[in-house]
Protein backbone atom coordinates (compact mmCIF):
# COMPACT_ATOMS: atom_id res chain seq x y z
CA UNK A 1 0.00 0.00 0.00
CA UNK A 2 1.27 3.47 -0.87
CA UNK A 3 0.23 6.97 0.24
CA UNK A 4 -2.70 7.08 -2.22
CA UNK A 5 -4.09 3.79 -0.85
CA UNK A 6 -3.80 5.08 2.72
CA UNK A 7 -5.53 8.31 1.74
CA UNK A 8 -8.47 6.42 0.16
CA UNK A 9 -8.70 3.95 3.06
CA UNK A 10 -8.54 6.41 5.95
CA UNK A 11 -10.54 9.05 4.06
CA UNK A 12 -13.49 6.75 3.46
CA UNK A 13 -13.47 5.01 6.84
CA UNK A 14 -12.89 7.95 9.15
CA UNK A 15 -14.91 10.28 6.90
CA UNK A 16 -18.03 8.08 7.02
CA UNK A 17 -17.71 7.49 10.78
CA UNK A 18 -17.20 11.23 11.45
CA UNK A 19 -20.15 12.14 9.22
CA UNK A 20 -22.42 9.66 11.02
CA UNK A 21 -21.32 10.91 14.44
CA UNK A 22 -21.77 14.58 13.50
CA UNK A 23 -25.19 14.20 11.86
CA UNK A 24 -26.67 12.22 14.76
CA UNK A 25 -24.87 13.87 17.70
CA UNK A 26 -28.09 15.33 19.15
CA UNK A 27 -30.02 12.03 19.22
CA UNK A 28 -31.56 11.96 22.69
CA UNK A 29 -35.03 10.61 21.94
CA UNK A 30 -35.41 6.94 22.93
CA UNK A 31 -37.49 6.01 19.92
CA UNK A 32 -35.02 7.56 17.46
CA UNK A 33 -32.04 6.13 19.32
CA UNK A 34 -33.38 2.57 19.33
CA UNK A 35 -35.47 2.44 16.16
CA UNK A 36 -33.92 5.13 14.00
CA UNK A 37 -35.45 8.16 12.39
CA UNK A 38 -39.20 7.61 11.93
CA UNK A 39 -38.96 9.05 8.41
CA UNK A 40 -36.64 6.22 7.27
CA UNK A 41 -37.60 5.10 3.76
CA UNK A 42 -37.55 1.60 2.30
CA UNK A 43 -34.30 2.11 0.39
CA UNK A 44 -32.38 2.90 3.58
CA UNK A 45 -34.03 -0.03 5.39
CA UNK A 46 -33.23 -2.40 2.52
CA UNK A 47 -29.57 -1.33 2.42
CA UNK A 48 -29.33 -1.47 6.21
CA UNK A 49 -30.69 -5.04 6.32
CA UNK A 50 -28.23 -6.07 3.59
CA UNK A 51 -25.26 -4.32 5.23
CA UNK A 52 -25.92 -5.87 8.65
CA UNK A 53 -26.12 -9.38 7.21
CA UNK A 54 -23.07 -9.20 4.94
CA UNK A 55 -19.92 -8.85 7.03
CA UNK A 56 -16.32 -8.86 5.83
CA UNK A 57 -16.41 -12.66 5.77
CA UNK A 58 -18.86 -12.37 2.86
CA UNK A 59 -16.55 -10.23 0.77
CA UNK A 60 -13.20 -11.68 1.85
CA UNK A 61 -13.88 -15.39 2.37
CA UNK A 62 -16.69 -16.19 -0.06
CA UNK A 63 -14.63 -15.58 -3.23
CA UNK A 64 -11.97 -17.89 -1.72
CA UNK A 65 -14.56 -20.54 -0.95
CA UNK A 66 -15.82 -20.42 -4.55
CA UNK A 67 -12.19 -20.57 -5.73
CA UNK A 68 -11.78 -23.89 -3.91
CA UNK A 69 -15.23 -25.51 -4.00
CA UNK A 70 -17.11 -23.77 -6.79
CA UNK A 71 -20.31 -21.73 -6.62
CA UNK A 72 -22.59 -24.34 -4.95
CA UNK A 73 -22.67 -22.15 -1.81
CA UNK A 74 -25.23 -19.95 -3.59
CA UNK A 75 -27.87 -22.58 -2.70
CA UNK A 76 -27.50 -21.55 0.94
CA UNK A 77 -29.57 -18.45 0.08
CA UNK A 78 -32.46 -20.25 -1.66
CA UNK A 79 -34.67 -20.19 1.44
CA UNK A 80 -34.12 -16.47 2.00
CA UNK A 81 -36.70 -14.91 -0.38
CA UNK A 82 -39.45 -17.23 0.90
CA UNK A 83 -38.52 -16.54 4.53
CA UNK A 84 -38.62 -12.78 3.92
CA UNK A 85 -42.14 -13.08 2.51
CA UNK A 86 -43.23 -14.77 5.77
CA UNK A 87 -41.44 -12.08 7.85
CA UNK A 88 -43.25 -9.36 5.84
CA UNK A 89 -46.67 -11.02 6.06
CA UNK A 90 -46.57 -12.26 9.68
CA UNK A 91 -43.70 -10.97 11.86
CA UNK A 92 -43.37 -7.33 10.81
CA UNK A 93 -47.06 -6.31 11.11
CA UNK A 94 -47.21 -7.75 14.65
CA UNK A 95 -44.01 -6.02 15.79
CA UNK A 96 -45.24 -2.70 14.41
CA UNK A 97 -48.74 -3.05 15.78
CA UNK A 98 -47.44 -3.67 19.29
CA UNK A 99 -44.86 -0.88 18.98
CA UNK A 100 -42.12 -3.03 20.52
CA UNK A 101 -38.45 -2.07 20.57
CA UNK A 102 -37.24 -5.69 20.47
CA UNK A 103 -38.53 -9.03 19.22
CA UNK A 104 -38.21 -10.46 22.73
CA UNK A 105 -40.49 -7.76 24.16
CA UNK A 106 -43.21 -9.40 22.09
CA UNK A 107 -42.47 -12.76 23.77
CA UNK A 108 -43.01 -11.10 27.15
CA UNK A 109 -46.41 -9.81 26.02
CA UNK A 110 -47.46 -13.07 24.38
CA UNK A 111 -46.09 -15.49 27.01
CA UNK A 112 -44.38 -14.35 30.19
CA UNK A 113 -41.27 -12.70 31.58
CA UNK A 114 -39.14 -15.85 31.75
CA UNK A 115 -39.72 -16.69 28.07
CA UNK A 116 -38.80 -13.12 27.16
CA UNK A 117 -35.59 -13.36 29.20
CA UNK A 118 -34.75 -16.73 27.62
CA UNK A 119 -35.13 -15.27 24.11
CA UNK A 120 -33.09 -12.18 25.01
CA UNK A 121 -30.38 -14.27 26.72
CA UNK A 122 -30.02 -16.60 23.72
CA UNK A 123 -29.68 -13.59 21.46
CA UNK A 124 -27.18 -11.73 23.68
CA UNK A 125 -25.00 -14.81 24.13
CA UNK A 126 -24.85 -15.64 20.45
CA UNK A 127 -24.68 -12.16 19.00
CA UNK A 128 -22.19 -10.90 21.61
CA UNK A 129 -19.71 -13.57 20.55
CA UNK A 130 -20.46 -12.98 16.88
CA UNK A 131 -19.69 -9.27 17.33
CA UNK A 132 -16.19 -10.27 18.45
CA UNK A 133 -15.76 -12.56 15.45
CA UNK A 134 -16.97 -9.78 13.12
CA UNK A 135 -13.88 -7.77 14.11
CA UNK A 136 -11.45 -10.64 14.53
CA UNK A 137 -12.03 -12.47 11.21
CA UNK A 138 -10.98 -9.67 8.85
CA UNK A 139 -8.38 -8.27 11.26
CA UNK A 140 -6.29 -11.42 11.40
CA UNK A 141 -6.19 -11.75 7.60
CA UNK A 142 -5.51 -8.08 6.89
CA UNK A 143 -2.91 -7.89 9.68
CA UNK A 144 -1.14 -10.96 8.30
CA UNK A 145 -0.91 -9.86 4.67
CA UNK A 146 -0.31 -6.16 5.32
CA UNK A 147 2.07 -6.65 8.22
CA UNK A 148 -0.05 -4.62 10.65
CA UNK A 149 -0.29 -5.34 14.37
CA UNK A 150 -3.34 -7.55 14.99
CA UNK A 151 -4.24 -5.98 18.35
CA UNK A 152 -4.13 -2.42 17.00
CA UNK A 153 -6.21 -3.39 13.93
CA UNK A 154 -8.86 -4.92 16.20
CA UNK A 155 -8.91 -1.96 18.59
CA UNK A 156 -9.03 0.65 15.79
CA UNK A 157 -11.92 -1.09 13.99
CA UNK A 158 -13.83 -1.69 17.22
CA UNK A 159 -13.44 1.86 18.56
CA UNK A 160 -14.48 3.43 15.26
CA UNK A 161 -17.76 1.47 15.27
CA UNK A 162 -18.35 2.18 18.99
CA UNK A 163 -17.95 5.95 18.60
CA UNK A 164 -20.71 6.52 16.06
CA UNK A 165 -23.02 3.72 17.25
CA UNK A 166 -22.96 5.02 20.83
CA UNK A 167 -23.42 8.63 19.70
CA UNK A 168 -26.31 8.26 17.28
CA UNK A 169 -27.74 4.76 17.85
CA UNK A 170 -29.94 3.35 15.12
CA UNK A 171 -30.06 6.66 13.24
CA UNK A 172 -26.25 6.68 12.93
CA UNK A 173 -26.14 3.02 11.93
CA UNK A 174 -28.69 3.56 9.13
CA UNK A 175 -26.93 6.71 7.93
CA UNK A 176 -23.39 5.27 7.84
CA UNK A 177 -24.47 1.95 6.34
CA UNK A 178 -25.74 3.75 3.23
CA UNK A 179 -22.28 5.19 2.53
CA UNK A 180 -20.46 2.05 3.56
CA UNK A 181 -22.54 -0.04 1.12
CA UNK A 182 -21.71 2.49 -1.62
CA UNK A 183 -18.00 1.93 -0.91
CA UNK A 184 -18.49 -1.87 -0.83
CA UNK A 185 -20.40 -2.05 -4.12
CA UNK A 186 -18.04 0.43 -5.80
CA UNK A 187 -14.99 -1.56 -4.72
CA UNK A 188 -16.35 -5.01 -5.56
CA UNK A 189 -17.57 -3.94 -9.02
CA UNK A 190 -14.19 -2.34 -9.73
CA UNK A 191 -12.37 -5.55 -8.73
CA UNK A 192 -14.73 -7.62 -10.89
CA UNK A 193 -14.19 -5.40 -13.94
CA UNK A 194 -10.38 -5.49 -13.52
CA UNK A 195 -10.54 -9.28 -13.24
CA UNK A 196 -12.71 -9.59 -16.38
CA UNK A 197 -10.23 -7.46 -18.34
CA UNK A 198 -7.37 -9.75 -17.28
CA UNK A 199 -9.17 -13.01 -18.15
CA UNK A 200 -8.69 -14.89 -21.41
CA UNK A 201 -11.71 -15.69 -23.63
CA UNK A 202 -13.77 -18.80 -22.76
CA UNK A 203 -12.97 -18.41 -19.05
CA UNK A 204 -16.47 -19.40 -17.96
CA UNK A 205 -16.25 -22.60 -20.04
CA UNK A 206 -12.93 -23.46 -18.41
CA UNK A 207 -14.38 -22.85 -14.93
CA UNK A 208 -17.29 -25.12 -15.87
CA UNK A 209 -15.01 -27.84 -17.23
CA UNK A 210 -13.05 -27.81 -13.98
CA UNK A 211 -16.22 -28.23 -11.90
CA UNK A 212 -16.48 -24.71 -10.45
CA UNK A 213 -19.85 -23.67 -11.92
CA UNK A 214 -22.22 -26.24 -10.44
CA UNK A 215 -24.74 -23.78 -8.99
CA UNK A 216 -27.64 -26.16 -8.34
CA UNK A 217 -27.51 -29.75 -7.12
CA UNK A 218 -30.82 -31.63 -6.78
CA UNK A 219 -29.25 -34.73 -5.17
CA UNK A 220 -31.47 -35.77 -2.22
CA UNK A 221 -28.62 -36.47 0.21
CA UNK A 222 -28.75 -35.19 3.81
CA UNK A 223 -24.99 -35.49 4.17
CA UNK A 224 -24.19 -33.09 1.34
CA UNK A 225 -23.76 -29.64 2.82
CA UNK A 226 -25.09 -27.58 -0.09
CA UNK A 227 -27.97 -28.91 -2.19
CA UNK A 228 -31.16 -27.38 -3.53
CA UNK A 229 -33.16 -29.17 -0.81
CA UNK A 230 -30.97 -28.14 2.13
CA UNK A 231 -30.87 -24.61 0.71
CA UNK A 232 -34.64 -24.26 0.33
CA UNK A 233 -35.74 -26.08 3.50
CA UNK A 234 -32.82 -25.52 5.89
CA UNK A 235 -32.07 -22.09 4.41
CA UNK A 236 -35.73 -21.10 4.82
CA UNK A 237 -35.71 -21.86 8.55
CA UNK A 238 -32.26 -20.31 9.04
CA UNK A 239 -33.33 -17.10 7.26
CA UNK A 240 -36.65 -17.02 9.11
CA UNK A 241 -34.76 -17.25 12.42
CA UNK A 242 -32.26 -14.61 11.43
CA UNK A 243 -34.60 -12.04 9.87
CA UNK A 244 -37.60 -12.73 12.08
CA UNK A 245 -36.13 -13.26 15.55
CA UNK A 246 -32.58 -11.85 15.61
CA UNK A 247 -32.75 -8.33 17.03
CA UNK A 248 -29.81 -7.14 14.89
CA UNK A 249 -32.12 -7.57 11.87
CA UNK A 250 -35.49 -6.83 13.50
CA UNK A 251 -34.15 -3.45 14.65
CA UNK A 252 -33.27 -2.53 11.07
CA UNK A 253 -36.82 -2.82 9.71
CA UNK A 254 -39.25 -2.07 12.58
CA UNK A 255 -38.42 1.63 12.71
CA UNK A 256 -39.45 2.74 9.21
CA UNK A 257 -41.77 5.65 8.47
CA UNK A 258 -44.61 3.16 7.88
CA UNK A 259 -45.26 -0.56 7.62
CA UNK A 260 -44.90 -0.20 3.84
CA UNK A 261 -41.29 1.02 4.14
CA UNK A 262 -40.22 -2.00 6.22
CA UNK A 263 -41.96 -4.41 3.86
CA UNK A 264 -40.45 -2.89 0.73
CA UNK A 265 -36.99 -2.87 2.37
CA UNK A 266 -37.29 -6.61 3.05
CA UNK A 267 -38.67 -7.34 -0.43
CA UNK A 268 -35.69 -5.45 -1.87
CA UNK A 269 -33.45 -8.00 -0.10
CA UNK A 270 -35.64 -10.92 -1.21
CA UNK A 271 -35.11 -9.89 -4.83
CA UNK A 272 -31.45 -8.87 -4.80
CA UNK A 273 -29.72 -11.10 -2.24
CA UNK A 274 -29.31 -14.13 -4.55
CA UNK A 275 -28.02 -12.07 -7.52
CA UNK A 276 -25.60 -10.25 -5.19
CA UNK A 277 -24.25 -13.50 -3.74
CA UNK A 278 -24.03 -14.97 -7.25
CA UNK A 279 -21.87 -12.03 -8.26
CA UNK A 280 -19.51 -12.69 -5.32
CA UNK A 281 -19.18 -16.46 -5.86
CA UNK A 282 -18.67 -15.90 -9.61
CA UNK A 283 -15.84 -13.54 -8.70
CA UNK A 284 -14.25 -16.48 -6.85
CA UNK A 285 -14.81 -18.95 -9.71
CA UNK A 286 -13.26 -16.50 -12.19
CA UNK A 287 -10.33 -15.88 -9.81
CA UNK A 288 -9.73 -19.62 -10.06
CA UNK A 289 -9.51 -19.35 -13.86
CA UNK A 290 -7.26 -16.29 -13.59
CA UNK A 291 -4.77 -18.15 -11.41
CA UNK A 292 -4.70 -21.12 -13.81
CA UNK A 293 -3.03 -18.85 -16.37
CA UNK A 294 -0.58 -17.16 -13.99
CA UNK A 295 2.93 -18.63 -14.16
CA UNK A 296 3.62 -17.80 -10.51
CA UNK A 297 0.37 -18.94 -8.86
CA UNK A 298 1.28 -19.56 -5.21
CA UNK A 299 0.91 -23.02 -3.73
CA UNK A 300 -0.28 -21.42 -0.48
CA UNK A 301 -1.92 -17.98 -0.61
CA UNK A 302 -0.95 -17.13 2.97
CA UNK A 303 2.48 -16.20 1.65
CA UNK A 304 3.62 -14.45 4.83
CA UNK A 305 3.43 -17.71 6.77
CA UNK A 306 4.69 -19.81 3.86
CA UNK A 307 7.84 -17.68 3.34
CA UNK A 308 8.55 -17.82 7.06
CA UNK A 309 8.53 -21.61 6.92
CA UNK A 310 10.57 -21.77 3.71
CA UNK A 311 13.33 -19.87 5.53
CA UNK A 312 12.90 -21.91 8.71
CA UNK A 313 14.44 -25.18 9.92
CA UNK A 314 12.06 -27.29 7.80
CA UNK A 315 12.66 -25.16 4.72
CA UNK A 316 13.82 -28.11 2.63
CA UNK A 317 10.39 -29.82 2.90
CA UNK A 318 8.57 -26.63 1.91
CA UNK A 319 10.91 -25.94 -1.01
CA UNK A 320 10.36 -29.51 -2.29
CA UNK A 321 6.59 -28.94 -2.18
CA UNK A 322 7.03 -25.67 -4.07
CA UNK A 323 9.03 -27.42 -6.79
CA UNK A 324 6.41 -30.16 -7.11
CA UNK A 325 3.66 -27.52 -7.34
CA UNK A 326 5.47 -25.61 -10.09
CA UNK A 327 5.86 -28.81 -12.16
CA UNK A 328 2.19 -29.76 -11.70
CA UNK A 329 1.03 -26.22 -12.46
CA UNK A 330 3.07 -26.15 -15.69
CA UNK A 331 1.64 -29.56 -16.65
CA UNK A 332 -1.89 -28.31 -15.94
CA UNK A 333 -1.35 -25.29 -18.20
CA UNK A 334 -0.39 -27.67 -21.03
CA UNK A 335 -3.57 -29.64 -20.39
CA UNK A 336 -5.65 -26.44 -20.41
CA UNK A 337 -4.22 -25.41 -23.78
CA UNK A 338 -4.94 -28.92 -25.10
CA UNK A 339 -8.53 -28.72 -23.87
CA UNK A 340 -9.04 -25.28 -25.46
CA UNK A 341 -7.65 -26.60 -28.78
CA UNK A 342 -9.86 -29.72 -28.61
CA UNK A 343 -12.91 -27.60 -27.83
CA UNK A 344 -12.16 -25.23 -30.73
CA UNK A 345 -11.78 -28.23 -33.09
CA UNK A 346 -15.43 -29.14 -32.49
CA UNK A 347 -14.61 -32.82 -31.92
CA UNK A 348 -16.66 -33.95 -28.87
CA UNK A 349 -14.62 -37.10 -28.19
CA UNK A 350 -11.31 -35.18 -28.33
CA UNK A 351 -12.78 -32.54 -26.02
CA UNK A 352 -13.94 -35.19 -23.56
CA UNK A 353 -10.51 -36.86 -23.51
CA UNK A 354 -8.78 -33.49 -23.02
CA UNK A 355 -11.20 -32.61 -20.28
CA UNK A 356 -10.57 -35.89 -18.44
CA UNK A 357 -6.82 -35.24 -18.59
CA UNK A 358 -7.38 -31.71 -17.32
CA UNK A 359 -9.51 -32.85 -14.38
CA UNK A 360 -6.83 -35.45 -13.48
CA UNK A 361 -4.16 -32.73 -13.54
CA UNK A 362 -6.35 -30.53 -11.34
CA UNK A 363 -6.81 -33.35 -8.81
CA UNK A 364 -3.04 -33.87 -8.63
CA UNK A 365 -2.57 -30.14 -8.10
CA UNK A 366 -5.25 -30.09 -5.38
CA UNK A 367 -3.62 -33.05 -3.61
CA UNK A 368 -0.33 -31.13 -3.45
CA UNK A 369 -2.12 -28.05 -2.05
CA UNK A 370 -3.74 -30.23 0.58
CA UNK A 371 -0.39 -31.76 1.50
CA UNK A 372 1.19 -28.30 1.68
CA UNK A 373 -1.58 -27.00 3.95
CA UNK A 374 -1.23 -29.96 6.28
CA UNK A 375 2.56 -29.53 6.40
CA UNK A 376 2.20 -25.81 7.08
CA UNK A 377 -0.31 -26.39 9.89
CA UNK A 378 1.97 -28.96 11.49
CA UNK A 379 4.91 -26.56 11.38
CA UNK A 380 3.03 -23.40 12.37
CA UNK A 381 0.07 -23.31 14.78
CA UNK A 382 -0.68 -19.75 13.55
CA UNK A 383 -1.66 -21.14 10.13
CA UNK A 384 -4.53 -23.07 11.73
CA UNK A 385 -6.35 -19.88 12.74
CA UNK A 386 -7.46 -19.14 9.18
CA UNK A 387 -8.23 -21.05 6.02
CA UNK A 388 -5.85 -20.56 3.12
CA UNK A 389 -8.80 -19.82 0.80
CA UNK A 390 -9.42 -16.65 2.85
CA UNK A 391 -6.19 -15.24 1.40
CA UNK A 392 -7.07 -15.78 -2.29
CA UNK A 393 -9.03 -12.56 -2.91
CA UNK A 394 -6.79 -10.33 -0.78
CA UNK A 395 -3.74 -11.69 -2.66
CA UNK A 396 -5.41 -10.74 -5.95
CA UNK A 397 -6.21 -7.27 -4.59
CA UNK A 398 -2.67 -6.58 -3.40
CA UNK A 399 -0.84 -7.99 -6.42
CA UNK A 400 -3.10 -7.24 -9.39
CA UNK A 401 -4.97 -4.01 -8.70
CA UNK A 402 -3.59 -0.49 -9.24
CA UNK A 403 -2.80 1.80 -6.31
CA UNK A 404 -5.82 3.74 -5.15
CA UNK A 405 -8.05 0.78 -6.02
CA UNK A 406 -6.08 -1.29 -3.48
CA UNK A 407 -6.97 1.31 -0.84
CA UNK A 408 -10.59 1.20 -1.98
CA UNK A 409 -10.77 -2.60 -1.68
CA UNK A 410 -9.17 -2.58 1.79
CA UNK A 411 -11.78 0.07 2.63
CA UNK A 412 -14.44 -2.41 1.40
CA UNK A 413 -13.23 -4.92 3.98
CA UNK A 414 -13.31 -2.38 6.83
CA UNK A 415 -16.62 -0.84 5.70
CA UNK A 416 -18.30 -4.25 5.74
CA UNK A 417 -16.83 -5.01 9.19
CA UNK A 418 -18.01 -1.64 10.57
CA UNK A 419 -21.50 -1.77 9.04
CA UNK A 420 -22.16 -5.26 10.31
CA UNK A 421 -20.64 -4.63 13.74
CA UNK A 422 -22.53 -1.37 14.23
CA UNK A 423 -25.84 -3.14 13.55
CA UNK A 424 -24.92 -5.83 16.06
CA UNK A 425 -23.83 -3.39 18.79
CA UNK A 426 -26.97 -1.34 18.31
CA UNK A 427 -29.12 -4.45 18.78
CA UNK A 428 -27.10 -5.70 21.77
CA UNK A 429 -27.40 -2.30 23.51
CA UNK A 430 -31.14 -2.16 22.81
CA UNK A 431 -31.88 -5.70 24.04
CA UNK A 432 -29.77 -5.18 27.18
CA UNK A 433 -31.67 -1.98 27.97
CA UNK A 434 -35.23 -3.00 27.07
CA UNK A 435 -35.32 -6.72 27.89
CA UNK A 436 -32.83 -7.00 30.75
CA UNK A 437 -32.34 -3.65 32.53
CA UNK A 438 -35.95 -2.46 32.22
CA UNK A 439 -37.27 -5.91 33.19
CA UNK A 440 -35.61 -5.50 36.58
CA UNK A 441 -36.29 -1.74 36.84
CA UNK A 442 -39.86 -1.37 35.52
CA UNK A 443 -40.34 2.00 37.22
CA UNK A 444 -37.47 3.46 35.18
CA UNK A 445 -39.28 2.80 31.87
CA UNK A 446 -40.87 6.27 31.87
CA UNK A 447 -37.55 8.07 32.40
CA UNK A 448 -36.56 8.55 28.75
CA UNK A 449 -33.19 10.35 29.19
CA UNK A 450 -32.11 7.64 31.63
CA UNK A 451 -33.10 4.92 29.15
CA UNK A 452 -31.08 6.58 26.39
CA UNK A 453 -28.06 6.97 28.70
CA UNK A 454 -28.25 3.32 29.64
CA UNK A 455 -28.64 2.20 26.02
CA UNK A 456 -25.46 4.16 25.23
CA UNK A 457 -23.59 2.57 28.11
CA UNK A 458 -24.73 -0.93 27.16
CA UNK A 459 -23.73 -0.34 23.52
CA UNK A 460 -20.27 0.80 24.63
CA UNK A 461 -19.93 -2.16 27.00
CA UNK A 462 -20.83 -4.66 24.28
CA UNK A 463 -18.34 -2.92 21.98
CA UNK A 464 -15.64 -3.29 24.63
CA UNK A 465 -16.64 -6.93 25.13
CA UNK A 466 -16.39 -7.57 21.37
CA UNK A 467 -12.91 -6.00 21.25
CA UNK A 468 -11.81 -8.02 24.30
CA UNK A 469 -13.19 -11.22 22.81
CA UNK A 470 -11.44 -10.55 19.48
CA UNK A 471 -8.15 -9.95 21.28
CA UNK A 472 -8.62 -13.13 23.35
CA UNK A 473 -9.56 -15.49 20.49
CA UNK A 474 -6.36 -14.61 18.70
CA UNK A 475 -4.77 -17.09 21.09
CA UNK A 476 -7.14 -19.92 20.24
CA UNK A 477 -7.18 -22.29 17.30
CA UNK A 478 -10.01 -22.94 14.87
CA UNK A 479 -12.33 -20.83 16.97
CA UNK A 480 -13.94 -18.96 14.10
CA UNK A 481 -15.15 -22.11 12.40
CA UNK A 482 -16.32 -23.65 15.68
CA UNK A 483 -18.22 -20.55 16.77
CA UNK A 484 -19.90 -20.09 13.39
CA UNK A 485 -21.27 -23.59 13.71
CA UNK A 486 -22.27 -23.14 17.36
CA UNK A 487 -24.10 -19.92 16.46
CA UNK A 488 -26.23 -21.78 13.95
CA UNK A 489 -27.23 -24.20 16.75
CA UNK A 490 -28.93 -21.50 18.84
CA UNK A 491 -31.40 -20.24 16.23
CA UNK A 492 -33.80 -23.20 15.77
CA UNK A 493 -35.22 -23.29 19.33
CA UNK A 494 -35.65 -19.51 19.34
CA UNK A 495 -37.51 -19.67 16.03
CA UNK A 496 -39.67 -22.47 17.47
CA UNK A 497 -40.71 -20.14 20.33
CA UNK A 498 -41.81 -17.47 17.82
CA UNK A 499 -43.64 -19.99 15.63
CA UNK A 500 -45.59 -21.17 18.69
CA UNK A 501 -46.28 -17.55 19.65
CA UNK A 502 -47.70 -16.71 16.23
CA UNK A 503 -49.52 -19.89 15.26
CA UNK A 504 -50.49 -21.79 18.44
CA UNK A 505 -52.50 -19.44 20.60
CA UNK A 506 -53.46 -22.12 23.14
CA UNK A 507 -49.87 -22.70 24.22
CA UNK A 508 -48.72 -20.79 27.30
CA UNK A 509 -45.41 -19.50 28.64
CA UNK A 510 -44.30 -22.41 30.82
CA UNK A 511 -44.91 -25.01 28.08
CA UNK A 512 -42.97 -23.09 25.44
CA UNK A 513 -40.17 -22.18 27.88
CA UNK A 514 -39.39 -25.80 28.78
CA UNK A 515 -40.03 -26.92 25.18
CA UNK A 516 -37.38 -24.45 23.97
CA UNK A 517 -34.86 -25.82 26.47
CA UNK A 518 -35.72 -29.39 25.35
CA UNK A 519 -35.43 -28.48 21.66
CA UNK A 520 -32.07 -26.83 22.32
CA UNK A 521 -30.88 -30.07 23.94
CA UNK A 522 -32.09 -32.07 20.90
CA UNK A 523 -30.17 -29.82 18.48
CA UNK A 524 -27.00 -29.96 20.59
CA UNK A 525 -27.41 -33.76 20.87
CA UNK A 526 -27.73 -34.25 17.09
CA UNK A 527 -24.77 -31.97 16.47
CA UNK A 528 -22.60 -33.74 19.07
CA UNK A 529 -23.61 -37.17 17.74
CA UNK A 530 -22.50 -36.12 14.25
CA UNK A 531 -19.15 -34.97 15.63
CA UNK A 532 -18.56 -38.23 17.54
CA UNK A 533 -19.80 -40.38 14.64
CA UNK A 534 -18.87 -38.45 11.46
CA UNK A 535 -20.50 -41.12 9.28
CA UNK A 536 -23.89 -39.98 10.60
CA UNK A 537 -23.21 -36.24 10.52
CA UNK A 538 -25.86 -34.22 8.66
CA UNK A 539 -25.45 -30.82 7.01
CA UNK A 540 -25.85 -28.10 9.66
CA UNK A 541 -28.68 -26.39 7.74
CA UNK A 542 -30.92 -29.36 8.59
CA UNK A 543 -30.62 -28.55 12.30
CA UNK A 544 -32.88 -25.54 11.71
CA UNK A 545 -36.11 -27.31 10.67
CA UNK A 546 -35.40 -30.14 13.15
CA UNK A 547 -34.90 -27.82 16.16
CA UNK A 548 -37.88 -25.63 15.24
CA UNK A 549 -40.17 -28.65 14.78
CA UNK A 550 -38.94 -30.15 18.09
CA UNK A 551 -39.79 -26.92 19.95
CA UNK A 552 -43.30 -26.78 18.44
CA UNK A 553 -44.03 -30.47 19.15
CA UNK A 554 -42.65 -30.31 22.72
CA UNK A 555 -44.73 -27.17 23.36
CA UNK A 556 -47.95 -28.86 22.23
CA UNK A 557 -47.23 -31.99 24.28
CA UNK A 558 -46.26 -30.02 27.40
CA UNK A 559 -49.29 -27.76 27.05
CA UNK A 560 -51.53 -30.83 26.87
CA UNK A 561 -49.86 -32.20 30.01
CA UNK A 562 -49.78 -28.93 31.98
CA UNK A 563 -53.22 -27.84 30.75
CA UNK A 564 -54.71 -24.36 30.72
CA UNK A 565 -53.14 -21.28 29.27
CA UNK A 566 -50.27 -20.29 31.51
CA UNK A 567 -48.96 -17.32 29.57
CA UNK A 568 -49.77 -13.63 29.66
CA UNK A 569 -52.83 -12.02 28.12
CA UNK A 570 -53.55 -12.82 24.46
CA UNK A 571 -52.01 -10.43 22.02
CA UNK A 572 -54.09 -9.41 18.98
CA UNK A 573 -52.51 -10.65 15.78
CA UNK A 574 -54.88 -9.24 13.20
CA UNK A 575 -56.51 -5.90 12.69
Amino acid sequence: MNALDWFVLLGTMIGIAAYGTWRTRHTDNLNTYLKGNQSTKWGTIGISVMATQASTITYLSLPGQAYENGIAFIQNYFGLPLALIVVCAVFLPIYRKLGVYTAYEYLGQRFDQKTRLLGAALFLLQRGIQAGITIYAPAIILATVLGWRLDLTIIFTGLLAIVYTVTGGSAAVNLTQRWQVAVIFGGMITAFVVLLVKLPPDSAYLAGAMGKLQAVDFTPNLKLRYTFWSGVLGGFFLSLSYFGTDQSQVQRYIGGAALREGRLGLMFNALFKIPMQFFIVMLGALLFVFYQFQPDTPLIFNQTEWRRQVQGPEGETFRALDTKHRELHADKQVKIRAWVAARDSGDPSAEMAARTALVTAQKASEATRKEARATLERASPDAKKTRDSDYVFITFILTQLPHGVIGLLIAVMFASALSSKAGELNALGTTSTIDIWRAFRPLAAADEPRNVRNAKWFTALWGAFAIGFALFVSFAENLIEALNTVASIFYPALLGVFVVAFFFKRVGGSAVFYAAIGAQAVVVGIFAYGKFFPKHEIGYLWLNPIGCAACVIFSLVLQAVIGGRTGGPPVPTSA
Partner: protein
Amino acid sequence: MSKLPRDSSDNEAPGVPIFRTWRGVYLFVAACFAAMVIALTVFTRFYA
Protein backbone atom coordinates in the same frame (compact mmCIF):
# COMPACT_ATOMS: atom_id res chain seq x y z
CA MET B 1 -52.91 -24.86 14.82
CA SER B 2 -54.48 -21.45 14.94
CA LYS B 3 -55.55 -19.60 11.85
CA LEU B 4 -52.66 -17.84 10.12
CA PRO B 5 -52.29 -14.45 11.82
CA ARG B 6 -52.32 -12.63 8.49
CA ASP B 7 -52.50 -8.92 8.72
CA SER B 8 -55.42 -7.21 7.00
CA SER B 9 -52.87 -4.85 5.44
CA ASP B 10 -51.96 -7.72 3.08
CA ASN B 11 -54.97 -6.63 1.07
CA GLU B 12 -53.99 -2.96 1.13
CA ALA B 13 -52.37 -1.19 -1.79
CA PRO B 14 -48.58 -1.33 -1.39
CA GLY B 15 -48.07 1.92 -3.24
CA VAL B 16 -45.95 0.22 -5.87
CA PRO B 17 -46.79 0.62 -9.57
CA ILE B 18 -48.60 -2.38 -11.14
CA PHE B 19 -49.36 -4.12 -7.80
CA ARG B 20 -52.76 -3.71 -6.15
CA THR B 21 -52.10 -5.70 -2.95
CA TRP B 22 -49.19 -6.98 -0.89
CA ARG B 23 -50.17 -10.51 -1.85
CA GLY B 24 -49.40 -9.52 -5.44
CA VAL B 25 -45.95 -8.29 -4.37
CA TYR B 26 -45.26 -11.56 -2.53
CA LEU B 27 -46.35 -13.61 -5.54
CA PHE B 28 -44.08 -11.54 -7.77
CA VAL B 29 -41.10 -12.09 -5.44
CA ALA B 30 -41.83 -15.85 -5.28
CA ALA B 31 -42.07 -15.98 -9.08
CA CYS B 32 -38.75 -14.11 -9.40
CA PHE B 33 -37.17 -16.63 -7.01
CA ALA B 34 -38.46 -19.53 -9.13
CA ALA B 35 -37.09 -17.82 -12.25
CA MET B 36 -33.67 -17.40 -10.55
CA VAL B 37 -33.53 -21.11 -9.63
CA ILE B 38 -34.47 -22.09 -13.20
CA ALA B 39 -31.84 -19.71 -14.60
CA LEU B 40 -29.15 -21.11 -12.27
CA THR B 41 -30.14 -24.69 -13.20
CA VAL B 42 -29.83 -23.85 -16.90
CA PHE B 43 -26.51 -22.12 -16.15
CA THR B 44 -25.25 -25.27 -14.37
CA ARG B 45 -26.29 -27.55 -17.24
CA PHE B 46 -24.79 -25.21 -19.84
CA TYR B 47 -21.35 -24.92 -18.26
CA ALA B 48 -20.98 -28.25 -16.48
